[in-house]
């Protein structure tokens, strides 16, 4: 029906696959962290597709960063809340 471009999910999986050698050479614990990073990028695939960026991997990296920062902000809030509690 005229779809020529692979879906953003398919392309994402190909990009993830292209890092398989890098992943293999990492320590096991680091492999799991890498997997987590890739999983976090999957939260924003719809936006990545809509972006129609010529190099989608850049958008995937930005998505990973977005999720990381979300986590930082959440932790910051938690820390502030803990620190502000009366002793």
């Amino acid at each position, binding site marked *: *029906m005229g*779809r020529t*471009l692979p879906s953003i999910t398919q392309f994402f999986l190909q990009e993830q696959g292209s890092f398989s050698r890098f992943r293999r050479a990492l320590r096991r614990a680091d492999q799991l962290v890498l997997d987590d990073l890739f999983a*976090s990028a*999957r*939260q924003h*695939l719809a936006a990545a*597709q*809509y972006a*129609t960026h010529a190099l989608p991997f850049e958008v995937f990296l930005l998505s990973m960063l977005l999720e990381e920062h979300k986590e930082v902000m959440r932790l910051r809030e938690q820390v502030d809340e803990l620190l502000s509690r009366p002793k």
Partner: protein
Amino acid sequence: MTDVHTGWLFDAYPNGKNLTLWMLCEDGQRRHFVQDFPVAFYAAGAPRRLRELWKWLEAQEVPVRLSRKERRDAFRGMITVLSVEVLEPARLDALFHRAASSLPDLTYYDGDIPLALRHAAAFGVFPLARCRLESRGETALDIVPLDTPWKLDPEPAPLRVLSLEPDCDPARGEPGRVLIACEGARYSQPLQPARPLLVNLSAVLRRCDPDLVLTTWGDTWLMAYLLELSRQVGVCLPLNRDEGEEVVVRREHTYFSYGQIVYRGRQIQLRGRWHLDRHNATLWNDYGLDGVLEMARVTGQPVQEAARLSPGTGISSMQFITALRQGILIPWHKHQAEAPKTALGLLQADMGGMVYQPMVGLHRDAAGIDFVSMYPGIMVRFNISPEVPRAGMDLEPASGEPGIVPLTLAPLLQKRLAFKRALVTLARHDCRRPAYQARASAAKWLLVTCFGYLGYKNARFGRIEAHEAVTAYGREALLRAKEAAEDMDFEVLHMYVDGLWVRREGCGSAVDFEALLNEIAERTGLPIALDGMYRWVVFLPSRLDGRVPVPNRYFGVFQDGSIKVRGIECRRRDTPPFIADVQMTLLQILAGAPDADHLSGALSEAQVFIRRSACELRAGRVLPEQLLVSQKLSRELGEYSSPSPAARAVRQMQAAGKDVRPGQRVRFLYTRGRPGVRAWDLPAPPDPRTVDLPRYRTLLLRAAQTVLAPIQQSLEAGQGYPGSENLFGFKVKSGLESDLSGR
């Protein structure tokens, strides 16, 4: 001296010389007439070649009227064509194909349009249209419609129905009797001996004179069986009312459509009567006869065709009628190639609808809002049609003449919206409801296929750029809806092509979303409606990785207690009935909780039910029929490098002499050891002791996990259940396994 008859147009088909019409007259009589109906095809191309075609046509023995005309090609504007008017309509097909083979380099138009559609376009009639027919003797002089296809509630024709049903499925057993029902009488008769059966059927046909012969397995078995019997025994069966014509038999075939194999079974059609087969009528289960008649009504296809339509044929029929009425030539082949884009342009255009990643987990008081028939609505409002040049991408209504596609869709879309409105206002037990629902479903089905058809490579009035423009508008509309929601402080839980799920603290009923709906309609220019208010809805992650959201797996309970489910086991066609039922029951147990606060009680009840179900399975108390897996054979057996379970089951069927074509389904059980499956529809019943119970137990638990794990997680994550828990990161727990293994 002319007569005037008023009634319903029942059927129209070619005979040797012209057209035969059947009418169900107001006085109760079924009358037939003949009508002269010359039909034309056209050719365009180099003048020298057109002259050769002219000479060739004159040399054929088919009576034609040849002339030069100026006619409109949708893409090229007014062009000069050779007009070939064939006086005997039945002869156009063969003549056209011979002409096209002899002079293939010419461009042909109106070559393969079904006769019924031409007639419908020429006179403004359609199957079961109320009309007035003027005749002289048997000859119809004129026919005038008193009706339109767009009436919600047309006056029903008093159809006489004869029902025939073998006493078992011929694909799975040997039928011994046939059940006959007509005019309130119901009885069964043995299939053997043949002569009394045929004599009786013949008498029933003459006495009842049914308009509709409604069968079960009539296309695939019964009708061919009866016809063969009639030939062998020498007793004539007046299946056709028009006994001068042969019963029409169409062979089965398999074809590719959108990358999938589709199988179309044999069809048997009558003349002067309709034969419909409940098992071979597209979507009969959803709409029944009302839906089929509606399909015939709006597409112009004769009822026997309309019942067996494949996707795309319905829409293309409607487009043909529009084109014929507008005097626009219908090309035989689609010639337009895509206009060039840059690589960047292709990156931007080649996309579908926006499919989001939902916020995984349980959400309370969510509203599902959907654009109503978004893509057709876009095509109509923004005048998207292959022959209409496109300008910008702002969501402004288009000016200028409507193209063929919007012209065709607009009345259908209006009718669908009218049904939707009417169904909301009709009382629960209004007797019109089922008919309205059936007709609305038929309209909805047609509208759903029209978008795909726009991009279809063989569609005469299809074009990839138009298809892409529609999805682009769709994405823009969805994003504006999201922005409207966020501007009004709603949280957007999920979005999917033409719908979104939103929630806001304090918004617990439909009226709280009115303002949002109005704002979205304002910003997009498209109608949008509340699909329902959920007490709670769960969006599930990927089965393989709990961190990854997937767009199409969710379940939820509406405020009225009804359940909506997508993508999980009970919605999949290959899930065994036992497991689907268990999962559905679990959902019903959860739906029994009055709201999300009381889910823990429901969860305990659900866990008890699961343990009981697993016990039943282990004790062998589940009937094998309930454990059947039903899968489609996706390719020829030879093409499998390692055979799927379905393929292995089909091999067993073939060994027993039963053929299964790619595109058809095969039913089987999982069995212990090799080959691991046992086809169901074999002559000997399977041994229940060979069933692979542990495997089914795994499937059962997995189906239970799908539904219960998110509820469990939600209860454990929150105290006092905050409004939305984003459970991104939850792992699918195996609490159930440890629960059960302890027994």
